[in-house]
């Protein structure tokens, strides 16, 4: 099964995504700290899709994305930003860093499922 990792410092946001994805044919790993997820990726974990928050302490979503793009295994891994931020200039910044898409919180569960299905090319 494809591996999807979620990174968000909000436990309730992670709980929400967990309940949305638990019926999908994917393996899910969740992290409250981007640096922990990054360490596991550098140690050999290869996710098929990364969904990350932007505003997080220690390492924010953009810093995480830059680090991901520097690791050969995740240089082109599809990455979605899941955030409360709506500013167009931030979206542009994300796009320039190689982001795949932008989801504004609170997300619609059906649309999150659709986005994951589309990116991973799962059967609809």
């Amino acid at each position: 099964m494809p591996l999807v990792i979620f990174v968000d410092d909000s436990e309730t946001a992670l709980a929400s995504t967990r309940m949305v994805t638990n019926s999908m044919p994917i393996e899910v790993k969740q992290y409250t700290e981007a640096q922990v997820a990054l360490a596991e990726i550098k140690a050999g974990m290869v996710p098929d899709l990364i969904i990350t928050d932007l505003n997080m302490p220690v390492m924010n979503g953009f810093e995480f994305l830059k680090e991901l793009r520097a690791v050969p295994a995740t240089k082109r891994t599809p990455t979605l930003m899941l955030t409360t931020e709506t500013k167009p200039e931030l979206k542009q910044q994300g796009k320039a860093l190689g982001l795949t898409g932008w989801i504004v919180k609170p997300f619609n569960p059906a649309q999150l499922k659709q986005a994951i299905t589309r990116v991973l090319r799962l059967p609809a």
Partner: protein
Amino acid sequence: MMMLDSIDELLEHIKEVQVDVMELSNESLMKMSSFMEKNNLEIDEDISTALQYQDIITQQLTATNEAINSMKKSIDIFSHAYKSDEGLANESIVKLKDKLNATLQDAKDKKSRFSGKHATEHADDEIEFF
């Protein structure tokens, strides 16, 4: 300057209350989500939104607490300047006003930034792909 000490104490109190609110709100929603997960209840859009509001609440209150910290620092600098040389007081109060205004503006910007779709009357539900 006793007035400034009182304001400082009040700001500290507001910070503590906000931290408690964040913790209690998080705890209540985690209990709810834990119950749902244990009982394999399906999440619908309303419950998903409710859970995600917690994130917005936390970011808003954290930004407000950061503004309070900044205000407390500015007041402290003014207070020290005033105590060391009353002649500097007039000059310092202008600087204090400017700093407090800048802090307020920054806090208002963050309120807008961290509201997600909650702040948008006709929120576009589409996920934007690049």
